[in-house]
C-alpha cells in the first residue's frame, strides 16, 4: 500500500511544482519549481519500483539516478544563467523589438 501513498504524494509535489513553474514571478522560484517537478516524477518512479513482492525492481532506481543527475545539471545551468540575468523576470521585453541591439555586431547599427 505504501507505494501508492508515496506515488500520490509524488503526484501532489508534481502538481504543485507544475502550477508554480508557470505562475511564479521570480526566476529562482521557477527554478526551484523545475527541480521539484523532477522530484515528483522520481517519487512516482521509485514508488512503482517498490511494488513487486519478489523484490525491488532496480531499473527505475537506475532511471531515477540518471534523472537526478540530469536534474542537477539543468538546475546548475539555470542558476548560472540566473546569476547573469539582469532583470528579475523572464517576461519583460518582447521578442519582436527593433533589433538594434543585435548580437552580431558590437557596434550599433545606424
Amino acid at each position, binding site marked *: 500500500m505504501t507505494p501508492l501513498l508515496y506515488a500520490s504524494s509524488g503526484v501532489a509535489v508534481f502538481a504543485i511544482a507544475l502550477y508554480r513553474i508557470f505562475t511564479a514571478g521570480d526566476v529562482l522560484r521557477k527554478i526551484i519549481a523545475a527541480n521539484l517537478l523532477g522530484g515528483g*516524477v522520481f517519487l512516482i518512479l521509485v514508488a512503482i519500483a517498490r511494488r513487486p513482492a519478489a523484490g525491488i*525492481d532496480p531499473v527505475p532506481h537506475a*532511471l531515477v539516478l540518471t534523472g537526478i543527475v540530469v536534474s542537477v545539471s539543468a538546475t546548475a545551468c539555470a542558476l548560472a544563467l540566473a546569476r547573469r540575468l539582469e532583470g528579475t523576470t523572464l517576461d519583460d521585453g518582447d521578442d519582436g523589438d527593433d533589433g538594434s541591439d*543585435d548580437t*552580431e555586431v558590437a557596434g550599433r547599427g*545606424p
Partner: protein
Amino acid sequence: MTGAIGWAILIPLGGALLAAAAGERASRWIAALAAAATTCAAIGVAASVARHGPSRHPAGGWLAPLGIELRADGLAATMLLTIAAVAGLVAAHALADRSRAAACARSCPLWLFTWAALDALVVSGDIFNLYVTLELATLAAVGLVADGEGPDAPRAALRYLLFALPGSLLYLLGVALIYGEHGALDPATLGAHVGASAPDTAAMALMTAGLCLKAALFPLHAWPVLAYTRASPVAGALLAGLVGKAAFLVLVRLWLEVYPATFTSAAGPVLGTLAAGAILWGSLHALWQPRLRAVIAYSSVAHTGYLFMWFALGTRDALAGALFVVMSHAAASASMFLATGAIARALGHDRVEGLTGLAHRLPIPFFALALAGTSAMAMPPSSGFVGKWLLVRAAFETGHRLWAAVMLIGGLLAAAYVFRLLRRAFLPRPAGEPIAITRSSGGHAALALALVAIALGLAPGLALDLLRGGSAP
C-alpha cells in the same frame, strides 16, 4: 560497418570531450575531424540500411526488454544524413570563421554534443533513453544560446531552458506511467501491450503534450522565438534547423511504434487543428516581422505546423511528406540563419529594410536566402515542394479537404513573406547605408545548405527509397 551506428554517437561525444579539454587551436582541429568522421559514420549507417534494410544494435549487448537497443531503419538513416548535412555545414561555417576562432573552445563542444544528442535520439530504441537524449540536446542548445554576445543572451537561454524543462518532465512522467503499466521501455514490446487503459491514455496525453511544448507547436510556439532572434547564426541554425525537430521525431517514433494507430486516431484531429493553426499563425506573423531572424523564427513555427499535419492524416505517404519537410526545412532554415548572420555582420543589423539593393552587394548570402526561401515556400524545384505535395495529396486522399486548403494557403502566405524579403534586393541601394563587405565566409556555408535543400527536391527518389527501404516497422 555494423558498428557505424555506434560510431555515429561516440565520435561526436568523444570529439566534444576532447575539444573541451584541448587548447584553442587544437579544439578547432578536433572539432573538424569529429565532424568529418561523424558524417562518414552517418553515411555508413545509411549505406547499410539501404543495402540490408533495418538492423538492431543492442547497446552493451543486452537484448530488447532489458537493455537499450539502437535501431538503424529508414527513418533513422535519413535523419542521420540530414543531421550530418546540416550540422556538418554549420560546423564548417563556425570553424571557417576566423574572427570567432576564440569562441570555438566554448561553442565547439556544445554543437558537437548537440550533434551527438540528435544522432542518439534518432537511433534510440528506448523511451527513457529518448528523454536523456532530449535533455542533452536541450542543455547543449541552451549552452549555445547562452554563448551569444548580446546582453540579452542569458535571458533568452534561461527562458528557453525553463520552457523546455516542463516539457521533458511531462514526457518523463508519461514514461514512468507506461513503465508502471507494462514494465518495459522498448517500443517493440510496448507496441504489443499498450492499449486504451487509464495509465496508457494518461501516459499518451502527457507525453504528447510535453513533446508538443518542446516542439513549439502552436499555441505553445512563442517560447523559442526569443532564443532564435538572440542566438548567434550557428546556434540559431542548429536550434531552428535540428533541435526544434527533435521532439517531433520522438513523437513520430511513439505514435508509429508505441501507441496503436486506432488508439491515437482519435487524438489525430486535435493535433491537426493545432497544426493548421500553426501554419496560418506562423505565416501571418512571419509576414510582418521587422527583423529577418524573427521572420525565419515564425517561418519555423509555420513549418512545425506542416510536420504535425501527419498526425491528422496518418498515411505512409503523409509521413514521407512530413519527414521531407523536416529535411528541407532543416537545411533551409539553417541556410537562412547563416545567411542572415553574414548579412547582419555586413550591415550591422538584421532589419528587413537593410536588404534593399542587396542582390549585387552581397550576392552569395542573397542567393542562399533566395534558394532557401524557395524551399521555405515549398515551390518546385525545392525539396519543400516534395514534402508539401505528399502532404497535400495525402490530405485529399484521406478526405481532409480543410487541412489541404490550409496547407495550400500556408504555401501562398509563405511565398508572400519570402518575396517580401527578396523583392527588396532588386531595389536600388539607398545611398546612406554603409556596408562592411568582409570576406563573408558565412555565405558559402549558407549557399551549400540551400543547395542541399534544392538538390533534395530535384532527386527526392533517393531519400524516399532510403525512407521506404529501411521503412520503420
